[in-house]
């Protein structure tokens, strides 16, 4: 089979899984939907490997294959094919997405077991994967936008999965609307491309762009910035990031899926996919890189202060995606995509471990309440620490090699790009610190009550409450499930976490400077023509960078060790001393409030104004004015109708007098 056929299968399987679960929901007992969902993604993964192998049969410069199912819309000069583009980048993304998703599905299979919406969950989950695959396989802008929006919708559905929680539904809405803003950006980018190049097709437009545009032409910059709007919205970059922390309202596996395999990485993929445009508009690329840098720093600082376990991980995602965006924007395509892969492993792992811990805490997510789970949950604790190590880019782990590839590249480009390298290293310190803020707070220290209970073999139970507001959950419906599932007791969770842990530790070995370069060789099929792709730091420089990065990571970890293990409480004192700074960080730099004040409130106020003033006085005023005029005239006419016959005679004679004057005037 050809690579494109495999790819169609990759697309079809998750969609089929989603539909089968949705329509057969009622007939499926127990964990059947979960198994179907997992199996379909696993098969999709297998097909992705099939596509990979098929693609590898082609010579490097012929690895961009397109195929179309049918003409989706072809009128008025706009030709839109339902077509895919299978190239190394797409296949790479497929592998990441399906691979990680398979494990997340496997984990969810057990984790979501007692939830009332079990089947619905897997249906959404499969749809999510399908959407993401559509996004990465899309061969033109329109299909890309479709996939893009589907991802947005799927995230909405999953974030507000527990839809009886008002916080969840609000968070879902936020995610969706911000994503729609991103969609609009992409739509307009597509319009610009169509206007200038006359096509929506990726490969055609890339080819045409090189012939049409000059470097840093206004249109190219506009296209790139609009693409960036889409990318930033999806990848939660400043200032479109506020939905991401709120997205933690969804079940934990959803967070894993959003943060690791799908969705947030889409922005990275998009910029990498659009490299011909970005290389023609380097100014825009630099802007994107700066945004990435800003995001990574902002998110890292916030992650230092927030106390919700999942939100810390969420901010870490933002920060890490910031690295990737920065990477692909400055041209470190392999570095960015490599980091995407590594991040997928350890972030999924972190969320799974966190999910296990939260289950043990009976849905309490406050990190301040957690402590000393190392004995109660040895497996979870071990894998949590592995995840933290990888996140902290501890030497040897996957995070280590990938992050430093980007920073070394930045340093190698020199000049202004040193800013990115230095900023990246500063971020790395913070990352290592907050990574182990999680690890140490959860694993070490005296066991908390829940941990003690678990040590006695009993999972803590509490009345289900909304972790965000503390209000009791809707008892009638009773989900999220009253039963909690921890990794220690569920083999699917264990398998999934173990596999991820393995990857988090060792996947970095795919691309070690001077040793091997599997990824860059493979991705060359996509980026071959890019001059930036061929910039490669020397092995020596790379290892120097690795050394710096490794030591920085160790410093961060040690700092965390001091603050949370050696001398616990020092952070509290720091927070009190710099109360305003802490509040600033704790409130996430007040971005929510800012957007609220700048966007939401003005819109609502406009609406209220329109409703209460404009509609009443202008729109109805037009009506009232017209009817008032007519009615007024009516009352004048009726008033003249006095019933007095002499009055009528008066008008008659008066009317004649007027008529007579007219006729005398027209007479000669």
């Amino acid at each position, binding site marked *: 089979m050809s690579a494109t056929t495999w790819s169609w299968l990759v697309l079809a399987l998750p969609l089929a899984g989603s539909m089968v679960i949705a329509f057969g929901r009622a007939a499926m007992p127990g964990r059947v939907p979960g198994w179907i969902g997992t199996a379909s993604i696993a098969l999709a993964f297998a097909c992705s490997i099939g596509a990979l192998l098929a693609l590898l049969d082609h010579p490097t410069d012929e690895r961009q294959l397109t195929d179309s199912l049918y003409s*989706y819309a072809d009128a008025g000069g706009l030709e839109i094919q339902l077509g895919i583009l299978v190239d190394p980048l797409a296949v790479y993304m497929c592998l990441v997405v399906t691979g990680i998703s398979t494990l997340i599905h496997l984990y969810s299979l057990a984790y979501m077991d007692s939830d009332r919406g079990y089947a619905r969950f897997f249906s959404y989950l499969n749809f999510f994967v399908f959407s993401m695959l559509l996004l990465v396989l899309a061969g033109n802008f329109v299909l890309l936008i479709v996939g893009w929006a589907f991802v947005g919708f799927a995230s909405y559905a999953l974030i507000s999965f527990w839809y009886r929680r008002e916080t969840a539904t609000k968070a879902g809405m936020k995610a969706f609307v911000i994503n729609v803003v991103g969609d609009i950006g992409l*739509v307009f980018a597509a319009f610009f491309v169509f206007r200038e190049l006359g096509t929506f097709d990726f490969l055609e437009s890339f080819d045409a762009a090189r012939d049409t545009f000059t470097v840093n032409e206004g249109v190219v910059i506009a296209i790139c910035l609009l693409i960036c709007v889409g990318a930033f919205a999806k990848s939660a970059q400043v200032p479109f990031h506020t939905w991401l922390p709120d997205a933690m309202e969804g079940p934990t596996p959803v967070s894993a899926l959003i943060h690791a395999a799908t969705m947030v990485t889409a922005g990275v993929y998009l910029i990498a996919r659009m490299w011909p445009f970005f290389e023609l508009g380097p100014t825009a690329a630099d802007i994107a890189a700066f945004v990435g840098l800003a995001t990574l720093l902002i998110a890292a600082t916030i992650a230092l202060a927030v106390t919700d376990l999942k939100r810390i991980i969420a901010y870490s995602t933002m920060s890490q995606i910031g690295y990737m965006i920065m990477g692909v924007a400055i041209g470190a395509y392999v570095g960015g995509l490599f980091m995407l892969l590594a991040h997928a492993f350890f972030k999924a792992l972190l969320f799974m471990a966190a999910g296990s811990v939260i289950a043990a805490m009976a849905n309490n997510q406050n990190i301040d309440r957690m402590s000393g789970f190392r004995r109660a949950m040895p497996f979870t604790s071990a894998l949590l620490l592995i995840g933290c190590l990888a996140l902290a880019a501890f030497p040897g782990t996957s995070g280590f090699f990938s992050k430093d590839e980007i920073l070394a590249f930045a340093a190698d480009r020199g000049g202004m790009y040193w800013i990115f390298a230095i900023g990246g290293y500063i971020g790395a310190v913070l990352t290592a610190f907050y990574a182990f803020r999680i690890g140490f707070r959860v694993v070490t220290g005296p066991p908390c009550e829940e941990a003690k209970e678990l040590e006695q073999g009993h999972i803590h139970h509490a009345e289900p409450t909304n972790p965000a507001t503390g209000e009791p959950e809707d008892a009638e419906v009773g989900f999220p499930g009253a039963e909690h599932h921890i990794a220690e007791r569920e083999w699917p969770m264990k398998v999934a976490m173990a596999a991820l842990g393995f990857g988090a530790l060792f996947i970095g070995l795919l691309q070690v400077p001077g040793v091997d370069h599997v990824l860059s060789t493979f991705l060359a099929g996509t980026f071959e023509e890019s001059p930036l792709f061929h910039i490669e730091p020397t092995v020596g420089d790379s290892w120097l960078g690795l050394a710096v990065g490794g030591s920085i990571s160790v410093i961060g970890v040690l700092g965390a060790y001091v603050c949370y293990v050696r001398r616990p409480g020092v952070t509290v004192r720091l927070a009190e001393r710099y109360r305003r700074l802490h509040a600033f960080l704790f409130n996430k730099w007040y971005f929510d409030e800012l957007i609220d004040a700048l966007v939401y409130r003005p819109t609502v106020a406009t609406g209220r104004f329109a409703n209460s003033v404009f509609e009443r006085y202008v729109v109805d005023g037009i009506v009232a004015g017209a009817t008032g005029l007519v009615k007024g005239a009516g009352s004048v006419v009726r008033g003249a109708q006095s019933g007095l016959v002499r009055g009528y005679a008066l008008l008659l004679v008066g009317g004649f007098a007027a008529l007579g004057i007219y006729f005398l005037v027209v007479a000669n």
Partner: protein
Amino acid sequence: MLNVLLWTPLAAGLIALAVPRTASRWVAALGALVTLVVAIALVADFDPAATGLQQVVDESWIPDLGVRYQLGVDGISVFLVLMTAALWFAVTLWSALRNEPGDGRAKLYYFLVGLAGTAALGAFTAQDLLLFVLFFDLMLIPFFFLIGTFGGLNRVAATTKMIVFTLVGSLLMLVGAIATAVLASDISGELTFSIPALQQTLLSDGNQAWIFCFFAAAFLVKMPAFPIHGWMPDAYRAAPLPVLILLSAVLSKVGAYGFLRVALPLFPDATIEFQEVIMVIALASVLYGSVMAFTQTNIRLIVGYSSIAQLGFITLGIFSLRVDGADGAVLQMVNHALVVAGIFIVIAIVYARTRTEDIREMGGQAMRAPVLAALFLVLALANLAMPGSANFIGEFYILNGVFQSKIALAFIASIGIALAAFYSLRMYQRVMHNRLPAGAESREIGLRDGLVLAPLVAAIVALALYPGLILDRGETSVTEKVSAVQAADDEQEGLIARR
């Protein structure tokens, strides 16, 4: 075939008047079904490549006025006809299944619905200007009675307001139509109202301008467009839901359709002259409708204002004066009709459970009614023009047209898309999600409602998978209309250049 299509609803309505009360609803439903079948046959018979009208019926009617009974379809109207027939069937069947209205007025109801059906189909098929005006106005009469007799609170005031409002425009249109024919006869020497014939003799710029304004007034009120939508809130509040479906889904389209059918081909110079004015009105409708939908709490009004916004988009597309924009507008007309119909059915279903139309007092329906929730979700997503839906393709085409002709307007219009996402989802969430309020019940959609709603949603999904179905067939005709305007534009530029 068009004759059968056109008169079957009325005939069924008349029979429904004659048969016993219990049978009348089934007679009406059968009539609507026949209409639908004919409409499907019409589409199947349609030749997408051919230019001009198809299935033409052309008889002399009022010879001394040059009025002809001239019907025909082209790529613009053929799917609007199908959509109308389908929604008419859906609404009739729905009412019949629900046995509404159950009392002695049922006969009247089905008669009026049939009459309205004939009028609406007539407006979409008429190719004689006067016939078009006649059907256009005739539509109002059954709606006046339907709302006034079967409606809710304040129905009489609401229905009177609606009819007076809309007639203000359409009576001016009548004058405009007559003036068009008479003035054209001064040029050509032959008095005719036939649109294809009138296209051959265009009026002078000055005459085109004022006549265009008269027509535009009629169409914009009907849609309705900001700021002349004053009749809409009251009418939407008072209308019974089946009637509201027809009102919102079909009647509003006649206005937009009128621009394509009449204004562009007959008044190309005026169209160019007023392009920006109309576009600004449309844009204001988009923004105003969206912002209002964003703040309404009555679910009918959310849909109502969102319709204003959607119709604004459609108008924008038409007045981009580009093939893609106008073709997208045609597609979007069908899409919007289907979606609005579905949403109103859902509103009726939900109302039966919650006894309220205020979204603040709703919620939590999804748990016990997952199928209903899923259907509604599809509708809500289509309403917000989710990429992947046909609505998206429609808006994409429209926006592309606007973008290529007036780039700034396209950017401003996009605000409407973002707001649409918000209000559509808000509507969905407030109905289906969050907690079930006290006093409301929640149960799955019934078979009778499902029988109507499910095919509608299926149609939406099907169109989403292949919007080319409509776009391809619309393209040829739309190109004709738009190129007529472009020709006039070129001519004007030529004149300027020569000077």
